[in-house]
């Protein structure tokens, strides 16, 4: 392994750091000394990261902490100012983009479908990196698209226009397109944006199923810390362009971390459904006497 100074580096001894994987899993995708900037504004500064293979990694952090920027760089949508993203040990910039597209899929935050395209045709676009002008629809294409549409439950929508669909359906269609690409690594930039809570859960369950059943490595940026805690195997918390902590949510998510990363007082309790960490904003009643404590009391009075 490379000896990096990253706080979450997967060192062999797996000592006191908050690394997620006790068995130090291999990592096809990693970042070394990654510095990312827009114009003159540096967003991510000297970041090291190993994305554990076969796991769901979720990146969280406050707005403008650089999490989406990091994801864009991992998916070569943004060129590093310094440092590099490595795919199988090779600098991403040096691998032909088409070859990258066969290993690494990415669903951007707000993808735009070509006007009036049907669902079946959009999902089929995911096969792009596998096709040639003389190989427009191979049996492998057929299998991948059928499979992607089945597993996202959009097979019945094949002939519908994408712009007629609801937000939840549309997001599933986009995920189907990314799946049809059949990449081992899948990057998702806030896949739950614009979705109501039921659809958010639906999409996240789908992502986890893909990871569990197909062994896809997933890196996701999520806004909601509780969703991140629930769906991540490996949680990466960022603040001001740096990784503050990473590891399995059970260890990484603490009241200290929430305060450090979001500047928010919170209580971390066991999630009644999963037993994992659940972040409840607000200081405990003993710590702050005023406003927060009175709210639950009022509610309790109103209930009977």
């Amino acid at each position, binding site marked *: 392994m490379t000896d990096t100074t990253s706080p979450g580096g997967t060192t062999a001894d797996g000592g006191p750091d908050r690394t997620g994987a006790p068995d130090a899993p291999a990592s096809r995708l990693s970042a070394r000394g990654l510095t990312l900037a827009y114009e003159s504004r540096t967003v991510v500064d000297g970041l090291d990261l190993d994305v554990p293979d076969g796991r769901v990694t979720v990146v969280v952090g406050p707005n403008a902490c650089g999490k989406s920027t990091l994801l*864009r760089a991992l*998916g*070569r*949508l943004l060129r590093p100012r310094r440092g590099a993203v490595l795919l199988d040990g090779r600098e991403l910039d040096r691998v032909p*983009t*088409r*070859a*990258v*597209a*066969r290993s690494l*899929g*990415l*669903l*951007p935050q707000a*993808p*735009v*479908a*070509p*006007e*009036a*395209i*049907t*669902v*079946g*045709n959009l999902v*089929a*676009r*995911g096969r*792009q*990196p596998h096709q040639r*002008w*003389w*190989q*427009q*629809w*191979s049996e492998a294409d*057929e299998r991948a*698209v*059928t499979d992607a549409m089945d597993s996202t439950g959009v097979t019945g929508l*094949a*002939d519908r*226009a994408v*712009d*007629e669909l609801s937000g939840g359906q549309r997001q599933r269609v986009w995920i189907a397109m*990314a799946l049809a*690409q059949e990449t081992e690594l899948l990057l998702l930039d806030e896949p739950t944006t614009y979705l109501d809570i039921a659809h958010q859960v639906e999409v996240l369950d789908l992502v986890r199923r893909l990871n569990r059943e197909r062994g896809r490595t997933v890196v996701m940026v999520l806004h909601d810390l509780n969703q991140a805690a629930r769906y991540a195997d490996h949680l990466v918390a960022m603040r001001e362009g740096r990784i503050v902590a990473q590891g399995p949510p059970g260890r990484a998510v603490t009241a200290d971390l929430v305060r450090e990363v979001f500047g928010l007082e919170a209580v971390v309790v066991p999630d009644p459904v999963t037993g994992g960490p659940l972040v409840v904003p607000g200081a405990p009643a003993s710590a702050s006497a005023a406003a927060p404590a009175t709210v639950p009391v009022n509610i309790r009075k109103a209930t009977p």
Partner: protein
Amino acid sequence: MTAPDAVGETPREAPGREAPVRPPGYGLVRRGRASFLLHRRSAAVTAALAAALAAAVVASLCLGETATAPTEVVRVLLGLPSPEELVVGTLRLPRVVLGLMVGAALGVAGGLIQTVARNPLASPEIIGVTHGAAALTVGAMTFGLTSYALLPYLSVAGGMLAAALVYVFAWRRGLSAARFVLIGLGFSVALRSLTQLFMTKGDFLAAQQAQVWLTGSLNGRGWEQAGPLGWALLAVLPAVLWCARAQRQAALDDDTATALGVRLGRVRLGLAATGVVLASVATGAAGPVDFVALLSPQIARRLTRTAQIPLLATALLGAFVVTLGDLLARRLLAPVELPVGVLTAAIGAPYLVWLIARGRTGGRP
């Protein structure tokens, strides 16, 4: 009772598995490792447009100061001896062929430029080609260029130069579609003022000739324009074939396209360059023919109902509109000839409005 039911159910599931899955609306041809998709509706529309174009060409060759029988026209086209050889083959044919090529080139150019600009209203006029060509040509005319053989080449150079400048100015860490259109518009306005200035400055006769060039006409043009244009189009053909496929990739948003392994910068440059060359050579041969580039791709796409602009159908439609427009321009107020540009707009615009107003799913503006 139960046994027949169970037997009856088994084959019902079978058809679902054997039907090959393919993108909706496409036919599939597989030969060994090679496989090709064919959009069925596009194929039908293309065939219909080809038939309409053939009819327009024959009609255009038949009608003139004297009417010729279609049978004689076909004989001339096939190279058989005919008494109408002179009228059809020598007088009418070059003009019709030129119109065909100009229409097809402008249509495809419009489609490519609209794809790069991500804007159905983009056209060679908006990104500087037309006005660049006009400024240089009119400038040369009014400042006493006497060799009229040079004018088309100047026009081509002017168009390409203006478009290249627009492209360079619109480039900032990649091409932004919005910047491309806005900077193109800025250049176009400036170049149009420059053209006006040349016309006021220059002597009266030259200004009048410039005005004639500016309206775009096939009047008095023939093999001397059609020949070079034909060669130019032949040279661009491989690029156009590449565009037909690349254009599909550029229809996705930047991030998605990049994620799918499309080298977007290269694809956009290729599409834009091909579009600009096509528009420039067509404008050089016939002057600015209005609306063909703007309307043909949109009409064709609404007819085929595809997500991307169908280039072959667009080419045929452009050729059809110009051929029909020129026929009407010649005959409507005969013996007075109208500029073809007036008629192409008059035919194309109402039809496009009707297509959009009819508002099918495939016709969302």
